[in-house]
């Protein structure tokens, strides 16, 4: 596999609805921004790009199949190679990785990944119905298909197993919304309090409206290249671009129906799912042994095994042993505050069962921002510095690529240029992780991005 650089990206401003443009024209906003940021003309880039990967989740939302080729066509990329990827909420993350593969494999020197979703063409509850069709239509959907309900069930089990509280989850909402206050691309920019989150209308107990991301219209684009591709782009622009590359990728999956998720033994977990740092620590092994002695089983419905396996694969390929101390920031799939907290555990930022206290520790918050909270510990590894899905919005096919763009800007040190505000710039960021997740943890991708030394 060749080294693959991420050189540019663009994001449309996510919003509730974009009736002013068709989806192809919204994709073009993100695409043109990424080209402009390379200091290239449209014609120059079109000449140099070898192909693309398109990302969108649902044909239902627009009653339009083959939207991928419609974007390809509108962007002027025909007749270059392309394909569309789909994997629920992880669609954008999968697209990011497929574009990486196109370059890493030697198939392309320059590849653009673009993604979009147009969710405003149906009302919110019909939209929830479409999304719920991503659950088994024989056994899950007819019982009351509603993803917020599914995630709420998963977290009630987490609360029962570990004593996780709604206030701990609300910390995630406060953090991500206040981060987004400084991100002009975000859909929701509000300074909420824990009380605001808890007093918002209850959607699926115990998740309130402020524990859950919103539907959006939006698009994002990321440009990948090989060493040779980079040389061609730089020759055309006469510029030298900051060196940020994809250090590794990882993916995992789990059973479609939550009811089918295994309840593994301690030995199975340690052999198949534990991270090196967990296996090598006597204290952590003992901690887990005690959990199992008290009836804990893995992954059950409280943990995302796919997220753990994606992280494990990405870490092992990059040689990351202690993710909390070796990764400077994480953009993760917080469709729900509960899933951010559960993902801390899957990604090994804390141990299984400790996501609640970890959420309130302060370690995942940004330095220099006043959250109006009493946080016992200083920031260590910012999680969702952009505001995440909860505040930025979740136009499904664009989301995982949006994370890639924000991670790139962090590692380039160009947040101020793109946001007109440097509040969210993490100083000296060397390595970032992006994490994309499909319904109830069926497909999960983790990609590590790194600044070249």
């Amino acid at each position, binding site marked *: 596999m060749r080294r693959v650089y991420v050189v540019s990206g663009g994001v449309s401003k996510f919003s509730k609805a974009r*009736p*002013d*443009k068709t989806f192809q024209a919204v994709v073009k906003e993100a695409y043109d921004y990424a080209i402009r940021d390379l200091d290239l003309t449209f014609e120059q880039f079109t000449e140099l790009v070898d192909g693309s990967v398109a990302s969108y989740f649902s044909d239902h939302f627009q*009653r339009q199949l083959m939207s991928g080729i419609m974007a390809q066509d509108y962007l002027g990329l025909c007749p270059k190679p392309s394909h569309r990827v789909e994997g629920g909420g992880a669609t954008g993350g999968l697209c990011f990785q497929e574009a990486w593969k196109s370059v890493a494999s030697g198939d392309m020197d320059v590849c653009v990944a673009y993604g979009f979703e147009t969710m405003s063409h149906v*009302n919110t*509850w*019909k939209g*929830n*119905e479409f999304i*719920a069709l991503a659950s088994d*239509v*024989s*056994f*899950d959907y*007819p*019982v*009351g*298909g*509603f993803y*917020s*309900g*599914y995630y*709420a*069930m*998963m977290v*009630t*089990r987490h*609360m*029962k197993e570990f004593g996780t509280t709604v206030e701990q989850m609300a910390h995630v909402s406060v953090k991500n919304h206040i981060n987004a206050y400084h991100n002009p691309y975000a859909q929701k920019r509000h300074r909420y309090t824990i009380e605001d989150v808890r007093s918002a*209308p*209850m*959607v*699926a*107990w*115990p*998740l309130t409206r402020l524990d859950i991301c919103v539907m959006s219209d939006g698009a994002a684009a990321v440009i990948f290249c090989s060493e040779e591709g980079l040389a061609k782009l730089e020759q055309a622009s006469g510029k030298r671009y900051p060196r940020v590359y994809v250090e590794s990728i990882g993916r995992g999956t789990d*059973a479609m*129906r*939550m*009811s*089918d*998720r*295994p*309840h593994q033994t301690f030995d199975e977990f340690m052999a198949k799912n534990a991270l090196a740092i967990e296996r090598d620590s006597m204290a952590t092994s003992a901690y887990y042994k005690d959990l199992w002695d008290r009836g804990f089983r893995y992954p059950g*419905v*409280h943990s995302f095994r796919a997220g753990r396996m994606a992280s494990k694969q990405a870490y092992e390929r990059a040689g990351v042993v202690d993710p909390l101390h070796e990764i400077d920031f994480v953009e993760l799939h917080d469709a729900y505050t509960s899933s951010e907290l559960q993902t801390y555990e899957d990604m090994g930022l804390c141990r299984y069962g400790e996501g609640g206290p970890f959420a309130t520790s302060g370690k995942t918050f940004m330095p220099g921002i006043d959250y109006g909270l009493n946080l016992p510990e200083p920031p260590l590894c910012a999680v969702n510095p952009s505001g995440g899905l909860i505040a930025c919005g979740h136009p499904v096919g664009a989301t995982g690529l949006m994370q890639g763009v924000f991670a790139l800007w962090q590692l380039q040190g160009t947040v101020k240029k793109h946001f007109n505000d440097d509040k969210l710039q993490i100083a000296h960021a060397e390595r970032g992780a992006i994490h994309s997740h499909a319904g109830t943890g069926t497909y999960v991708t983790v990609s590590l991005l790194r600044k070249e030394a």
Partner: protein
Amino acid sequence: MPDHDEPKLPRKIEETDDGQTVFNVPFPRTLDEAALQMLKNMGPIIFKQPYQIDYIHSYGQDSPFFAGLANGVFLGNRDPGSGYTYATPRGHDMYSGTETEWVVLPGEGTIHAFTVCHFGSEEFLPQTPFVLILVEFEGVDTLFLSRLVGVDPNAASLDWIGMKVEARYLRNSKLKPTDVYFMPAGDNA
């Protein structure tokens, strides 16, 4: 001369008033340069486009489960080798790849996880608030997603987890997994 009359071919598409019919859309009366330029400032046309379809859905190898529910029997699947038992039907075991066999499951279980949906997908919105549960059964390795009745949806509590529940069946099947639902055990009211 042709030996038959020329067919009378339609010269226009007949216009009707059904479906979406628009009688006037504002537009510049004259299309000069300035008017063409001004079209860029026009707001988007937005309208409603209905779509409705009936699917022919087959339960395939899972069909006996639904036939069971229609007859008040709760069926699951078991791997013949390992005995691994699924509360939600599955034609082949995920570990051995072997075709599973049908077994009758106990009608009583305990709540493993739950939520109360105060909102929902459009189809289920009129039923809110409703309670979703994942049920676990003694000797069964996987769970079953179902509805719970007989608890106050406005008094949700983590204490519901672990509650013993028993299966109830619709009198007349609707051929859906909701043909079975659960009540707190021993609640015969």
